[in-house]
């Protein structure tokens, strides 16, 4: 009865995620109530001085935007490449040891890890993993 079981699966799926949705709704409600109650409880007495950006305690110079060297972007490249790879691990992980897979998938896994490792070694050799 493939049809019946898939209907059942779908029902379970929607039930699960509607509960998750309800939790999200409860969370939003909690935050809304907290902010609402906070609004009723707290004093409001703004002054010009108070509304200045605190920054480090001294009156701010210029705006919130400042020149700075962002060195993280190389990591973000690396990260995107690796993270996309890692996504494919999960579906594979659930079946790789099932009957009929075994040795072949193990070789595939070592190929996969090998690719990642070579990529990582290349980045390492190029010196992008160090700042100094």
């Amino acid at each position, binding site marked *: 009865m493939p049809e019946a079981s898939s209907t059942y699966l779908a029902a379970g799926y929607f039930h699960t995620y509607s509960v998750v949705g*309800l939790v999200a709704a409860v969370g939003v409600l909690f935050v809304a109530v907290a902010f609402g109650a906070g609004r009723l409880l707290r004093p409001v007495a703004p002054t010009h001085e108070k509304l200045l950006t605190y920054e480090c305690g001294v009156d701010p110079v210029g705006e919130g935007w400042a020149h700075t060297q962002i060195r993280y972007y190389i990591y973000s490249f690396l990260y995107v490449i690796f993270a996309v790879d890692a996504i494919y691990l999960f579906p594979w992980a659930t079946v790789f040891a099932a009957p009929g897979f075994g040795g072949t998938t*193990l070789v595939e896994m070592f190929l996969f890890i090998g690719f990642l490792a070579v990529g990582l070694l290349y980045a390492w050799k190029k010196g992008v993993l*160090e700042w100094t």
Partner: protein
Amino acid sequence: MNDVLDVALRLVAVLVAFLVLPLVIGQTEHKVMAHMQGRLGPMYAGGFHGWAQLVADGVKFAQKEDVVPAGADRRIFQLAPAVALLPYLLVLIAIPVGPHGLVGTVVDAGLFFVLAVMGVGVLGSLMAGWASANKFSLLGGLRTAAQLMAYELPMLLAASSVAMAAGTISLPGILDAFHWWWIPWQIIGGLVFFTAGLAELQRPPFDMPVADSEIIFGAYTEYTGLRFALFLLAEYAGIVVLCGLTTVLFLGGWHGPMAGSLGWLWTLLKTALLAFVVIWLRVSYPRLREDQLQKLAWTVLIPLSLAQIALTGVVKVVTS
């Protein structure tokens, strides 16, 4: 009707756990840190060893004025604490506490769901840093984002090793498949997962995004009152979630003597033990520099987690 009641009960239980457990950990942190540093910690509020200190803090936070800097991006600034906090509530529903369906709800792709939702919390810090109109906040926000690059990957890889061992990505399913020898088998993955989790929570020694001696308080510098309190709550809820997940994935969750009736107690005990370790690390390690974390993640954690995957794969194929 029974079904509705059942779901409502689970929602209430999750909300209560979400509001109580972080406070318990916070109070424990006060006392444990104090004793490790040879002082008393809070002693006055509530009478007995200052047990009501955090309640008093909450009352204080609720009465404080809510200052939004004139230069800030108002809406984003005000929403950020909620974005930082709510993912942890969502994750809590999927963490199994005991056997026989003692879990908020069984999410089939639980492991995937949990890791994906936890990643959203970082957006809260980024929004706060971006919207504050404060250079130090912006730096803090960027450091938070950079930290994501460092820990997310080792975390994913270590978690997928457990999924390989269990042959499922449902969290209760993983626990059903658990055997005691998984603990030594998956120990490297467990250490990697826990370390990466500390970096996600911005806990010492990975608290560069809020490094007070460098960038005041990072993305949270401009926050006051209730909104600041929500950020703090997010940090401690994060500890609950990280320790709970490490327990479920690597320490066997509710497995233990008399698991049938006392399973939930085992989960709580293991989680509490890990939370203690989180506090312990805060007291004993100095803060790393931002690039030292990147280096640690890419040259130690990721190779280790890849090795764990290889080990898991070989053992699993050989034994099955």
